[in-house]
């Protein structure tokens, strides 16, 4: 295979392959930086995750690896053995999941324990059982695939709603109890509640004949005036009880409640509108019931106020008592009407959480062939939502959902609208590459950057917008060291950036925009994509951009990138720059101010003292003074030696690790990080041991110092023996 520089330049400029020198990219190639991830089942990482059904919201999503690590830590002396077995079981589960995508955790764990046991291995079974017991978790185990984003967010949303439901029920039950108490008290205190029959029923059968209930009734009715509610209040309380008991927002077990999870915003909007009156009624009932229960409801004041309750809608804190609406949809279903509905819902500040799943960020642009939309629809919604200011916005690839779970739960608990845009990494065009890697690569290549916009985090943009979860967020592209062996199997390493071009090379629709060049051409005018983006060619370029790929045999290749791809990479970088700037990185205003400040400082005449200091090394008189100072100043080693005083010490740098002293007393003498001896604790032994160690040291570097315990026997002799080591 031979190619000449002209062929590469023609390909770069036109996308045409002339002659036989350049080869098309195929599915056998993938970006070089992904080479070490050819088998994800052999690695430990965030996924699979458990959608946990036990525990609270914080534990609703758990990583299998983190679970194993956490449980292993509690295993005491068997920790290492159990952890190793845990890794084997984990490995087996990853293999099983790569075939079927998701499954019940208990079933999968048991099956993996059986499958990981190659023979009758009681210890592995024991480790498996003990680990599982320590997990105290159950639910579905899910890997990154097209189902994950919705499944995970729906589960986490369910956990948040369960907590809200619990809080609501506690409040509603408390209020119902008190309201019913008010009604019961009225009956008990009335004449009807003090009839002889009622009084007799009140004391029970044992004392039924002990009292004259007729007389008792007469005395009670005549002596204490009965209290009774006004009709209006009674009706109001009865109405409150009815509203609280018949509400469908938080259905009790066995009851039919309202559904809150939808697959389109129009359905959610319709449901919201239909239930609006009920919602107002319920919130109103809760508010009045609270006042009633405390006896603070004053008809003269409150009746008029509550008459028009909810006429202007409910505010966020009122709505936060009710369940949130969840809409899970795909970006390809985002037509104009759907987008418009979503924007309306988000702008209306209703408690709705919208999840947009994107499976394809490289869908072709309508502009021209070979250009990409870069997740246009989801991106547009995110931009609009951020622009609305009080919408919580979360954007992430599926691979980061676990590590960003706190932000995710924060968004789901946010008392207002929230938008979640997630790239699943699962599509038909990235052949043979696991969705987890595709998702992670999308974040790396800046095509689907990670961001969280939390309106409750502060007053300014820097506090609200967080882009910290993007790799090497200060750079245009993340760079990584790539180590490999050459033909002679010698180790080499290079630094590669992961760019949009690398991401596009994973997609079979764009294979034709890359051409593999023979190795003979590598040194001939091939530059990296980041370098090419900074070049300003005039006329025909003399260099072409390339990306590094590896084939299925592990061989490193270089592929020339065509002009269209470079243009898309430039566009992607520009969008990333905008996001960086919004996130407070390389802020143009701040940089302009900094440049002005630097310029101003440079123009200020330097202080005389600073000039003198700067000039000193160049001044003719300095050389004469410097040696004198050097002679007088004690060397650092001398100083160090002098500092020991009467304490014992070892010239550690000269230690030959011969074990003489450490075998004499391992507490007194220890090795440092370079495996050379020092005195770890002079009081961990006797002066005799110090002297004997000094005598035994073959390189005579132990200095016993003065005795620390004046009562030690035989000191006179020992001091004499130590003299030669002082």
């Amino acid at each position, binding site marked *: 295979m031979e190619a000449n520089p002209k062929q590469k330049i023609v390909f770069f400029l036109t996308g045409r392959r002339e002659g036989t020198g350049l080869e098309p990219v195929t599915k056998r190639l993938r970006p070089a930086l992904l080479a070490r991830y050819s088998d994800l089942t052999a690695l430990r990482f965030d996924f699979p995750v458990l959608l946990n059904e036990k525990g609270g919201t914080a534990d609703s999503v758990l990583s299998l690896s983190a679970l194993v690590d956490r449980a292993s830590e509690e295993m005491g002396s068997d920790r290492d053995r159990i952890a190793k077995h845990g890794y084997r079981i984990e490995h087996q589960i990853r293999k099983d999941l790569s075939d079927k995508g998701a499954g019940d955790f208990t079933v999968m764990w048991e099956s993996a324990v059986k499958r990981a046991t190659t023979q009758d291995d009681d210890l592995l079974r024991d480790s498996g059982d003990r680990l599982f017991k320590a997990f105290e978790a159950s639910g579905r185990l899910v890997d990154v695939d097209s189902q994950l984003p919705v499944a995970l967010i729906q589960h986490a949303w369910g956990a948040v709603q369960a907590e809200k439901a619990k809080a609501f029920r506690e409040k509603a039950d408390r209020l119902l109890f008190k309201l019913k108490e008010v009604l019961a008290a009225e009956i008990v205190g009335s004449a009807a509640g003090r009839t002889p029959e009622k009084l007799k029923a009140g004391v029970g059968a044992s004392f039924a004949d002990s009292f004259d209930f007729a007389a008792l009734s007469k005395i009670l009715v005549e002596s204490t005036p009965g209290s009774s509610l006004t009709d209006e209040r009674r009706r109001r309380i009865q109405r409150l009880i009815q509203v609280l008991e018949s509400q469908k927002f938080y259905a009790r077990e066995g009851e039919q409640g309202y559904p809150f999870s939808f697959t389109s915003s129009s359905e959610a909007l319709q449901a919201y509108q239909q239930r609006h009156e009920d919602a107002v009624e319920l919130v109103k009932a809760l508010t009045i019931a609270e006042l009633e229960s405390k006896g603070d409801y004053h008809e003269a004041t409150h009746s008029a106020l509550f008459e028009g309750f909810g006429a202007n809608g409910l505010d966020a804190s009122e709505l936060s008592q009710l369940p949130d609406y969840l809409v899970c949809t795909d970006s390809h279903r985002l037509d104009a009407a759907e987008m418009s509905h979503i924007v309306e819902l988000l702008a209306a500040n209703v408690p709705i959480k919208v999840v947009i799943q994107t499976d394809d960020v490289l869908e072709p642009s309508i502009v021209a062939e070979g250009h990409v939309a870069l997740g246009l629809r989801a991106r547009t919604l995110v931009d609009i939502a951020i622009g609305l200011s009080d919408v919580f916005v979360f954007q992430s690839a599926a691979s980061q959902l676990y590590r960003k779970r706190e932000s995710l739960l924060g968004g789901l608990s946010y008392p207002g609208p929230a938008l979640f845009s997630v790239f699943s990494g699962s599509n038909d065009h990235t052949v043979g590459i696991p969705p987890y890697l595709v998702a992670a690569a999308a974040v790396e290549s800046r095509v689907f950057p990670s961001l969280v916009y939390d309106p409750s985090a502060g007053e300014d943009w820097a506090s609200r917008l967080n882009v910290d979860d993007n790799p090497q967020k200060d750079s245009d592209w993340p760079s990584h060291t790539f180590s490999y062996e050459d033909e002679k199997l010698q180790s080499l390493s290079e630094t590669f950036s992961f760019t949009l071009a690398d991401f596009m090379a994973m997609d079979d629709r764009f294979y034709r925009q890359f051409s593999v060049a023979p190795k003979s051409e590598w040194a001939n005018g091939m530059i990296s994509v980041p370098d090419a983006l900074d070049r300003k060619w005039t006329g025909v370029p003399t260099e072409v951009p390339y990306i590094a790929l590896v084939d299925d045999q592990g061989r490193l290749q270089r592929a020339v990138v065509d002009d269209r791809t470079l243009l898309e990479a430039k566009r992607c970088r520009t969008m990333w720059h905008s996001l960086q700037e919004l996130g407070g990185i390389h802020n143009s205003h701040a940089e302009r101010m900094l440049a002005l400040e630097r310029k101003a400082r440079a123009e200020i005449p330097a202080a005389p003292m600073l000039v003198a200091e700067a000039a000193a090394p160049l001044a003719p008189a300095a050389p004469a003074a410097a040696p004198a100072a050097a002679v007088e100043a004690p060397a650092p*080693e001398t100083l160090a030696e002098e500092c020991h005083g009467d304490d014992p010490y070892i010239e550690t740098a000269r230690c030959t690790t011969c074990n003489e002293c450490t075998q004499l007393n391992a507490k007194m003498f220890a090795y440092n990080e370079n495996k050379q001896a020092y005195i770890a604790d002079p009081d961990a032994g006797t002066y005799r041991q110090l002297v004997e160690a000094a005598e035994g040291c073959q390189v005579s570097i132990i200095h016993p110092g003065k005795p620390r315990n004046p009562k030690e026997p035989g000191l006179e002799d020992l001091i004499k023996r130590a003299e030669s080591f002082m």
Partner: protein
Amino acid sequence: MKTTLPSIGASECLLRMYDEKHEIEDYQKGVPRWCTGCGDNAILTAVQKLCRDEALAPEKTVFVSGIGCSSRLPHYMNTYGFHGIHGRAFPVAEGVKMARPDLKVFVNTGDGDCCSIGAAHWIHAIRYNMDMTVMLHDNQIYGLTKMQASPTSPIGTKSNTTPRGSYLEALNPLTVTLGISNVSFVAQVVDWIPDVLYQVIHAAYHHKGFSFIRIIQRCPEWLPKLMDPWLHDPQRVMLLHHENGLQISPSLAKVYTRMEEHDPSDMNRAREIASSIDPIPVGILYRDDDIPCYEETRHDSKLRTTSLIKKGLEAELDKFTIWPEGGKPA
């Protein structure tokens, strides 16, 4: 080692893969059975420090030895190791390097193993100039077999085989090595100056070719007093320094004041220095980076692709498979 499996970490981003970093203890395996005070301990520490500082992957590092006290060293390294047969450390190491040029090969041999029974292999190993770091642990006695004179024992050494004192002048490993064609790196150190020991092993490791270091070491068990005159009198050690050789630290220069600037490319002067027994010259005597390595001269251009490696491994494993009647199915 930090982990037993490659790991991304429970909450790490994918492409920031866990990089294994090793401490000296990670390269340590077992408890050395050498006598207390033995110079082998100092050599072990120096190579472990080198492994740590160069971040050598244990699975890409191999220590090969023959027989003797020194040759126990591979047992104490948590890397690959080959405790070979007497005098045959070099052929084994050459085989390893030939088949796996990607491995970092170290050879630990003793004065008996290298200069007596293994002398023929030693000479040809120098000539082959394969990329490996060779440490000759020269304690001038057979220690493992309890005190017999070795080729490097000084004349007059009383031992179990020479009760009236040895009759022959000691063999000088430095002059022998420097006399062989294709020699590319020769150095000498003493085990009791750890700073220099490490520096020289470090330089030898970075030299591409057969890097031969004679390490004069003490044997506290069988020749406890032999090196005392040199040990206690720094004037009897001559440090060789040069911009292309050893760099002497100020603290070392304070103790070892006897120094000579020696250009390691000067073969004639290297041979003169090599002949000196007292003072002991310490440093890099000779180096030539342009000598071709045998494994490169005989390099097989076939790429070791994953399918080739798999095919080779399967062929090896097939040797241990019991096939059904009629042999391996087609």
